[in-house]
């Protein structure tokens, strides 16, 4: 009986010590800080970046104005995009209308936005801009640009969705987000209600 009590007490102590140790190792670690915003909310990029601080996006801000989902055929008809290479590997196109604004950045062409880094994320699913479709939905085809001080620009970012990678229903009813920076803060804009 005494032996059983000693073993039980020791087991409980062991579990508690283990839990404290795991808690300690996780609390002393730097986690990426995640900040989430809503559609229509202006997101200041500040000192955050995707890969390196040389991206210099401080002073810029991003606002998602709205989204639209089109089938490949609908997209082709709407934007007169009948080149067979367009959306070759996609079944749908998810269009995200975004306004970029340069409020305070005075670095001119040494700073700006690179749309190739923008990511659409929905749990395990991620995707990058569909470059070929981009020029059809915008009146220019430049994926990296700088804005003049105190000016803004609206851009539609197309993301191709391939059914083999994610079911489009699951994508829409899930939690799609637009990732606008990764470090030190991961800033995302929720594209769902």
């Amino acid at each position, binding site marked *: 009986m005494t032996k059983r009590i000693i073993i039980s007490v020791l087991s409980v102590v062991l579990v508690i010590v283990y839990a404290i140790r795991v808690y300690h190792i996780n609390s*002393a670690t730097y986690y990426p800080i995640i900040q989430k915003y809503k559609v229509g909310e202006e997101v200041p990029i500040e000192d955050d970046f995707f890969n390196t601080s040389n991206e210099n996006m401080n002073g810029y801000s991003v606002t998602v104005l709205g989204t639209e989902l089109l089938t490949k055929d609908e997209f082709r008809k709407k934007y007169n995009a009948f080149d067979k290479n367009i959306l070759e590997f996609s079944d749908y196109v998810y269009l995200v209308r975004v306004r970029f604004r340069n409020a305070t950045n005075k670095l001119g062409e040494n700073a700006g936005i690179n749309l190739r880094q923008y990511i659409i994320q929905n749990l395990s699913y991620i995707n990058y801009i569909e470059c070929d479709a981009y020029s059809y939905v915008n009146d220019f085809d430049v994926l990296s640009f700088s804005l003049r001080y105190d000016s803004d620009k609206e851009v539609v970012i197309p993301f191709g969705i391939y059914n083999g990678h994610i079911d489009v229903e699951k994508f829409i009813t899930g939690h799609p987000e637009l990732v606008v920076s990764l470090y030190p803060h*991961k800033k995302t804009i929720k594209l769902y209600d």
Partner: protein
Amino acid sequence: MSNLRKEIKRSIKNKFFYISCIIGIILSLICVFEAVKDYSDYAVSLEEVEMINLNPLVSTLSAYTLWIGGGESNLYSTMMFLMLPLLVSLPYAWSYCSDRKNGYLKKAVNEIGSLKYNLSKYVATFISSGLVIAIPLIINLLSVLMFVPAITPDSVYDIYYGVFSYNFLGDVFYTVPILYDLIYILMIFLFCGLIGCLGYSFAVLFKSRILAVISPSALLLLIHYKKQYIGSFDFEISTISFLSSATNLFYNIKTVIIEAVILFVFTFIICVLRKEKNISEEIK
């Protein structure tokens, strides 16, 4: 039922089970040391990365990627998975051959009948073989969690993990990674249970103990080394390869299920449904 309990007890309280388990635990603890070393090196390099203002990709190196099933292989984890069929089949294949020699098999069959005996032996083999590998894996995971932070993976860095949206349990990996790893341990328990039963089948087929113990390893290693001729990028057939990490296992889930069904049918027919006449011949 009491016979099943007795067989399970015999299969776990046996020196070959202890030997296999201890070898597995030693290798898994060396892997913990390697994981902690890798993480310490990374933590030191973090300061340099901070200085040059690069994204340090914090979530790509965590307990979920550095534990033995996380996909970061090293010499010892490779050794463990190469030795896996031998570790798993050693306890029961050897003991079954001993039972046959020392008369225990004859006595047990006479007492409870061949079907009951075979079934209990099969279940006991399955459980003990699964435990031989599940115990070291659990010890490894629990130990790594004590020294390396458990940062939830971020699918933005999916290329580093090799887990994509179209993979089996992809969403679970990016939301509840501990559940993903526990499911992997459960799957490896089930699969190694079947490999143990394969060892038992060979023990039934061959009279030699050495041959019975070595045959499953030889077969799986042969498939592993010949896979480049019969496998392809999307089709992994080597059991040793797909058991070696959670990512590989879930990526090849269809092959895993097919191989598990084949193993189950083969071992069940050989070990449980064999005819009484064959057992009598074996005992002689």
